[in-house]
């Protein structure tokens, strides 16, 4: 396992020869109709099994397993905590009301540090780069979501201020949310989409006890778990048309790769190995909003380039020199021989990113499909 500890943000490269890499690249970058090694369409996800509320000892939990055997379990636990900020704020607010606006707003709108996330991946320590990077990336989008006023409907009043606002009980007390992610198997492909989907599902099923006390009293809760309220409030009947898309849902991070002009979703292990530029993006559900885009260094950059026949000493005189003529690649500006693998360098074109965003956000697009699929998982 020592070699895995050294793996950085990019997951391990499967051992593929330059010829295999070149073959995969060519088939994936076919204009308009890429061919994926497992025969999926570009926007198709791998089959997965999902269940939620599997652990009675948590506020919310979920398990998702991909067909290749990677599984993740997420447990969400909530604890009541005293808001440290507000104790002096309350005192000062009685004296002079003008100067405490900043700290009062923190107590009213919540604080990002109230959500804690930890990821455990077998073979990695807690403080290794990959778990820390992944958890921070997921926490960021979770906390940052709906920061700009989510309460645009009557049903969303409780969700104003996003997740942070939901955690506020009153000026002196708040919920602290612990999200523990457990990856049960070695990360075969980049684990982020799996972890993000599982976290999404766990948060959907998370319930907090119903508050009985009012206003600034010390919080006191109803001990009947049946009346507990969902962390992400849901409309009473999801099937009501139009209503389902209105309420706030936790964000989901999808992994998208771009190969040439093509945009490919949910890359598998082989595909991610050489992806020229994988892009991670967070979508905020509700009205489907794009929260953030982040690029990840692809493992393909570390692969060895192949040697064209014309430069191969072993092949001297064996091939006609006309067979491999270097072609100037318009994208990279480098000379390339077709069929000879060369690690891709450089960024992604704006049009490709625009295409990516459009595919996710459009009505009936990938984002909607994923979120609805997850919602379909029986939460009760």
């Amino acid at each position, binding site marked *: 396992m020592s070699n895995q500890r050294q793996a950085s943000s990019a997951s391990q490269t499967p051992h593929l020869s330059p010829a295999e890499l070149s073959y995969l690249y060519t088939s994936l970058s076919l204009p308009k109709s890429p061919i994926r090694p497992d025969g999926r369409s570009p926007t198709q996800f791998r089959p997965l099994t999902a269940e939620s509320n599997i652990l009675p*000892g948590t506020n919310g939990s979920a398990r998702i397993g991909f067909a*290749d*055997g990677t599984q993740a*379990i997420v447990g969400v636990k909530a*604890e009541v905590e005293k808001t440290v900020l507000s104790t002096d704020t309350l005192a000062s607010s009685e004296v002079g009301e003008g100067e405490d606006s900043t700290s009062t707003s923190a107590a009213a709108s919540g604080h990002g540090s109230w959500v804690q996330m*930890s990821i455990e991946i077998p073979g990695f*320590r*807690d*403080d290794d780069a990959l778990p820390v990077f992944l958890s921070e990336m997921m926490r960021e989008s979770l906390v940052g979501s709906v920061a700009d006023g989510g309460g645009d409907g009557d049903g969303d009043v409780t969700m104003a201020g996003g997740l942070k606002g939901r955690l506020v009980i009153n000026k002196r007390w708040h919920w602290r949310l612990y999200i523990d992610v457990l990856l*049960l198997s070695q990360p075969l492909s980049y684990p982020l989409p799996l972890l993000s989907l599982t976290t999404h599902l766990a948060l959907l099923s998370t319930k907090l006890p119903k508050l009985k006390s009012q206003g600034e009293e010390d919080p006191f809760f109803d001990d009947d778990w049946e009346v507990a309220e969902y962390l992400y409030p849901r409309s009473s009947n999801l099937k009501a048309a139009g209503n389902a898309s209105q309420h706030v849902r936790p964000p989901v991070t999808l992994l998208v790769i771009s190969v040439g002009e093509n945009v490919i979703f949910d890359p598998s292990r082989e595909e991610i190995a050489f992806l020229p530029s994988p892009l991670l993006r967070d979508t905020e559900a509700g009205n489907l909003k794009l929260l953030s885009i982040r690029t990840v260094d692809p493992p393909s950059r570390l692969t060895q380039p192949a040697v064209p026949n014309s430069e191969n000493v072993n092949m001297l005189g064996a091939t006609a020199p006309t067979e491999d003529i270097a072609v100037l690649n318009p994208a990279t500006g480098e000379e390339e021989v077709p069929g000879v693998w060369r690690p891709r360098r450089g960024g992604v074109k704006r049009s490709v990113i625009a295409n990516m965003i459009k595919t996710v956000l459009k009505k009936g697009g990938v984002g909607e499909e994923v979120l609805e699929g997850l919602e379909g998982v029986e939460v009760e």
Partner: protein
Amino acid sequence: MPLDTSTTYPLTRLRLDGRRWNELRLLQAQISTNPASSGSSYLSMGNTAIMCSVHGPAEGRRGEASGAAGSAGAIVEVDVNVAGFASVDRRRKAGGSDKQSSRIATTLRAAFQSHLHTYLYPHSTISIHVSVLSADGSLLAAAINACTLALVDAGIPMPGLLTGCTSGMSGSASTPRDPRNDELDPLLDLSLPEEQELPFLTVGTTTCVPVGENHMEDEEEETKVAVLNMDSKVHFTYIETMLAVGMDGCNQIRELLEGVIKGSNRG
């Protein structure tokens, strides 16, 4: 009414969760839960839930395989991870692993290293990964059972199923036992609140395969104690009773696990 076993048990003869002294909690198990590993299992005893996966036997890491230990047989590696959400209050462990999980890991490693037929796999490693999803007492016993199931699923030969169970006494049992006035009952399969107030021990037993002609005629299989672990104080006169009850629990669990293993082939 006080909610602890030592005060209410003498009155009602019922434990906190309504069980009698010799009743196990509901045991549910599944094998082959994770297709990415050689063998895997899920086991729940009451509210204790454990997932276990086995990788191997596979070629060991370069550093260890060259050692003298690796040449004789397979090395068993155990990694125990108690999830942060497993207990009632969320607990953050500092720096990788805590004392409880490393103790369980050491006990499991010692138990299975000697239990499995490791000589069949020289120069290789069998790595067991145990994830505790929910902890409600009898962690070590449940981990032993889950590991046994996962190892069976992985097809690693062993002489018999190694099963574990806890047993305790229904009082502090710190004075010598009085045979004429025996007011303490032994308890089987303790839950977390019981574990915290009562003395208990964990016992793991295995059956050996009958060898030789005489053994074939024996009706009963001989059970052997393979694991015995006790963290609390008890007067030694009670040990025998606790051990007998624990071994009886192990036999019950063995039958349940055999049912799980046989039942899993039907699908």
